[in-house]
């Protein structure tokens, strides 16, 4: 398999007067794990479906490798899609599901069966070749769906919330496998998710969307450490968005310092809640004229100065931890 780059140019999708995808531009280099991230209704799934060819673009272009695929049918784009909750054909066995694309192309039975078994081998599902989807667990279904998509030798694999049907433990295991597979195959994965954890763990390129537009695109580190807007800072989590005289700033929760009232601080805050989270403690504070603030403290720090709910504290941070946001 060879990877291709993906480029979206002023891509727009409107349903009547509702604009789901609003003239977005994006370049995804070949062999990239790209996550489209955002809250529901932000346009990430519409974008994926536009790339797949299951929606028609209202305006703009989709370019895969050297080819403008905007007007091409799904099967001729060099993409393959893995659907949310997989859409495995319930009346076909795993092997027949995987062999489906070969069957509709008229590949002889023995040959397509052999290819399907190879592909099931890639995802360690050969022993389940004759099972129907209903007889497979969620994780197994996900592997069959993956094999079914990969057998078409796509240049870009499109995944629509591939982990949402799995339980939390399996989710972490499967996402590591997805990442490994992407590197092995050397093709780009375009993965839609609403979980910033998932995106940060997997992506080479995080594309955070909001209201049909791309809010910020970059490596997970860039997006997390240098959020462009308050929305990005809030969505990625771990940040306090604070209004100041010179515009909004973001301060990471683990950089916030809490001191006794009267000691130097930039804001004052009243402790509203303390949550023990194993590796650290999370303190929530209410501060006048601000949204709630969060501070992360390690156990030793906390034990040195135990806090109680209702207590008023000085909240401080150092100059180098201030990150200015676009208004």
């Amino acid at each position, binding site marked *: 398999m060879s990877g291709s780059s993906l480029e979206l140019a002023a891509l727009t999708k409107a349903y009547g007067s509702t604009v789901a995808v609003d003239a977005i531009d994006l370049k995804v280099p070949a062999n990239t794990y790209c996550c489209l991230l955002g809250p529901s209704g932000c346009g990430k799934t519409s974008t994926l479906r536009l790339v*797949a*060819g*299951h929606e028609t673009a209202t305006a703009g272009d989709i370019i895969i490798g050297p080819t403008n695929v905007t007007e091409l*049918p*799904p*099967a001729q784009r060099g*993409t*393959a*899609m893995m*659907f*949310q*909750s997989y*859409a*495995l*054909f*319930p*009346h076909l*066995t795993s092997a027949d599901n995987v062999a*489906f*694309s070969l*069957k*509709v*192309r008229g590949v002889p039975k023995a040959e397509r069966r052999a290819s399907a078994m190879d592909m099931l081998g890639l995802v360690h599902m050969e022993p389940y*070749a*004759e*099972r*129907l989807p209903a*007889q497979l667990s969620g994780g197994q279904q996900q592997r069959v769906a993956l094999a*079914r*998509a990969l057998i*078409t030798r796509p240049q870009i694999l499109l995944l629509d919330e591939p982990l949402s049907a799995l339980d939390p433990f399996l989710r972490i295991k499967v996402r590591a496998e997805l990442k490994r597979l992407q590197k092995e195959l050397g093709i780009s994965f375009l993965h839609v998710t609403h979980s910033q954890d998932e995106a940060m763990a997997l992506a080479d390129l995080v594309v955070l969307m909001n209201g049909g537009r791309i809010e910020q695109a970059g490596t997970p580190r860039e997006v997390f450490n240098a959020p462009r807007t308050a929305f990005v800072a809030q969505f990625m989590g771990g940040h306090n968005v604070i209004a100041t005289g010179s515009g909004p700033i973001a301060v990471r929760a683990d950089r916030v310092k809490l001191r006794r009232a009267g000691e130097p601080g930039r804001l004052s805050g009243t402790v509203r809640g303390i949550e023990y989270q194993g590796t650290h403690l999370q303190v929530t504070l209410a501060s006048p004229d601000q949204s709630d603030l969060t501070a992360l403290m390690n156990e030793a720090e906390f034990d040195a100065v135990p806090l109680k709910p209702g207590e008023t504290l000085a909240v401080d941070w150092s100059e180098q931890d201030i990150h200015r946001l676009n208004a």
Partner: protein
Amino acid sequence: MSDRRTAGFYWLAALFALFVLFLYGPMITIFVLSFQGPQGGLTFPMNGVSLHWFSHLWEGLGVVDIWAAFRRSLKLGSIVMVLTVVLSLLAGLAYRKRFPGSNLLFYVVVASLIVPSIVVSLGIGLEFRLVDDAIKSLSDTFGWSFLDGYTTAMGLYTSGLGAQLTWTLPFGLLICFAIFNRFDRRYEEAARDLGATPWQSFAHVVLPIIAPSVVGIGLFGFTLSWDEVARSSQAIGDVNTLPLELTGLTTTVTNPEIYALGTLTTGVSFIVIFTALGLMQMLRRRTARALRAAA
């Protein structure tokens, strides 16, 4: 809270028992009385038990050729079944997309269920008579000799078939709405994504998934036709279907032969239903065998 059943439970249980009795009582009565002894009459008590009336039936019912009617009904029912399945499936597929006039068409189809059957039947009969008159006057005017023997366009497979379809098609369409409402479109998208043409996607994905419901439409079509009286009554032409013969016989036959006929026709309905269920069971077992072989 205690697990003891309230008085309401027993009242409702009694009501339900009455309902079941009302539903199956008549059928059971006819069934039992069809085994009446040779000296027995149309009502209880049973005067011995025998297959006498079945053997009578086998020899025919005097002037009425009941077996010819039986075969006609079977054939008409099968044609109605096939047409109902094909047409309502196609209509159901069409309704998955919006098309101009779709609402109007829907109301027209459903109106056919609401208009009293006997009125529909009379209308069809009248319509065919108008056509007949027109053809006859044309042939008289132009002296078409090949139409000399022409009497009527009415018949089992013209007006009769049409009359029954006015009854089965709306049901078929409504069932198709239910089928496609539940159908997950992502299966088709997945098929398209994997390179299937619309026809391949229908043949290899949609049809196999909805197959059990399609068998259901067929069953419905056949059984509705098999015992249809009102709509066929004025539109059947010069030969009768089995239920129409039966209706006629109720006024002329005065022995349990008619019950034997009732038992027999009910039996055919059951055979059709159980054949269909058996078919589904067989398919399921074949899948299970494949699974065992794989395990």
